[in-house]
């Protein structure tokens, strides 16, 4: 925490990740198949201020989860990078200070059934990061810290000897949160943390996450496809489509006055609870194959406002009336 707190804690600049999905070498040689590259994330830039939440939304395959994995260092970016608190995070991940950086950035995964080891007790699950990072001196301190972490997510110290299968989905997700909090991180990357949960349980987990943010000044990157949830938790919202950000705005502006045609369509696709029997105008068409994205703006085949320039030229993300947007029709 050497830098001033004025500058954003997390700065992603032109992050890109390309996967090589070519056929095996022999098939390429024998059948003359070309190399094939999948641009999962293609130049994404954003900042997150300390203590704030940026939400990324978009449909399956738009690259949200790849961004999450790039931010925590599970993937190496093909291009661009991440500056965390003034430091180049990916350089740090490779250096001797990797542990220090990992302590400060942690992740919560989507499926609490798959992300917890079924053969470990809760104490071992939450205690592992503490031991791994050398944050505790002895067994007594370990127990005390684990108990404290469990209480901070609304579970009890008596749960320590239990196994994951003895908990419901919501409780398991709280265990994942406690584990992520063990190293006292400043930045939490949450990849669809509530989409595997029932609504009443989702509310419990979202409330805990907001309480923790307030108490500890955590910074969140929150990934979700559920716009109502995003509206509830976030300060800023980035809308992604086929590996690129199409609109980035603060929450109130984005929901009150969406600019990008894709954002408008997504917002219109949400069922309205108290407006029973309302007919919607659904988004037309489907997400194109990312292996073979459309030319120009990748949204143009589904866009009602598409013109000739959209088919030939890819719009850049530009500042416009206080938001950032990539659209020829708007800017």
């Amino acid at each position: 925490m050497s830098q001033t707190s004025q500058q954003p804690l997390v700065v992603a600049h032109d992050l890109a990740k390309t996967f090589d999905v070519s056929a095996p070498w022999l098939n390429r040689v024998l059948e003359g198949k070309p190399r094939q590259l999948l641009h999962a994330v293609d130049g994404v830039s954003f900042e997150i201020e300390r203590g704030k939440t940026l939400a990324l939304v978009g449909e399956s395959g738009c690259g949200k989860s790849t961004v999450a994995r790039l931010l925590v260092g599970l993937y190496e970016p093909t291009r661009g990078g991440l500056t965390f608190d003034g430091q180049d995070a990916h350089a740090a991940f490779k250096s001797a200070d990797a542990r220090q950086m990992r302590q400060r950035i942690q992740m919560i995964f989507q499926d609490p059934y798959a992300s917890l080891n079924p053969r470990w007790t809760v104490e071992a699950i939450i205690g592992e990061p503490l031991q791994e990072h050398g944050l505790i001196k002895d067994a007594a301190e370990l127990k005390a810290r684990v108990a404290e972490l469990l209480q901070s997510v609304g579970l009890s110290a008596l749960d320590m000897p239990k196994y994951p299968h003895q908990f419901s989905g919501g409780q398991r997700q709280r265990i994942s949160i406690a584990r992520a909090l063990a190293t006292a991180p400043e930045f939490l990357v949450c990849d669809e943390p509530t989409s595997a949960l029932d609504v009443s349980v989702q509310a419990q987990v979202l409330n805990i996450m907001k309480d923790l943010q307030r108490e500890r000044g955590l910074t969140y990157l929150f990934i979700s496809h559920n716009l109502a949830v995003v509206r509830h938790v976030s300060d800023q919202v980035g809308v992604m489509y086929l590996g690129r950000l199409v609109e980035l705005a603060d929450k109130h502006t984005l929901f009150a006055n969406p600019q990008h045609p894709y954002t408008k369509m997504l917002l219109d696709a949400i069922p309205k609870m108290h407006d029973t029997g309302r007919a919607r105008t659904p988004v037309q068409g489907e997400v194109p194959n990312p292996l073979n994205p459309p030319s120009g703006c990748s949204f143009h085949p589904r866009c009602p406002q598409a013109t000739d320039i959209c088919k030939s030229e890819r719009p850049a993300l530009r500042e416009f009336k206080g938001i950032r947007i990539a659209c020829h029709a708007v800017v």
Partner: protein
Amino acid sequence: MSLLQVKNLVVEFPGRHGTLRALDDISFDIAPGEILGVVGESGAGKSLTGASIIGLLEPPGRVAGGQILLEGQRIDHLNADQMRHIRGRKIGAIFQDPLTSLNPLYTIGRQLTETILAHLPVSPAEARQRAIALLKDTGISAPEERIDHYPHQFSGGMRQRVVIALALAAEPKLIVADEPTTALDVSIQAQIIGLLKKVCKDHGAAVMLITHDMGVIAETCDRVAVLYAGRIAEIGPVHQVINHPAHPYTAGLMASIPDMDSDRERLNQIDGAMPRLNAIPKGCAFNPRCPKAFDKCLHHRPELTSAGATRAACWLHEEVAA
């Protein structure tokens, strides 16, 4: 007359440690052409209710009591062969994952014509024409070409359209749709829900729509049944249940959903979780989580009674009525 009547349905799973009662005394009916929503959290018994109606309850699960009547005829005690004639012809089914509902080795045309020929007295050529018309109805472009494609050549949303066409193939009176949009993206979800509503209206089919998404229920259904721990907590017209819920569980469920119109710092939450089947509390199953529970709730189980415009299983309303 009601198209489907479910009377006091009980479904049990016998096991080594005693019998688990997964559905307990479920009663409702569906009128011709009506869309009934069934909501609840995981494990509430939504899918089991659907499976019992279409006769696809997986052993050792069994209907242990009550009756299911379709057009006044009992269908809960039919054997597998008799049930096969009803399934498809009178009741169509749509499941969550469109990829597993289609056979990957056959073209969709073959799967559609097979269903049509099995149930309707038509020639193969007519069946193919019908199949093409169905695909057209469900919004698949160039159906004459697409009919000879295999399921893997379709995207998720398109596959679900094929599954809807398949469910409608023999003009059933009732469609049981179990989480038909859960595996799909939000933008595709809206398309599929709109389509389901439209084609069922055009073909005069009633729908039992099982989902955990209240938003989908709100805009699709005429009536809704809220399930909790294997029982109906509340049933009534959809706008009544959503805007003026009578049961504390329904009220809690509604309040816990983040909505687009209000700015709340915290969501209302229902503490705790739904009880497991082997540990259903005495009295009302919701009493440990209920903010309004009183003495009677701990000892006596409430039955569905009329509560304003809806029917709810809650002693709060019993007291008012008495």
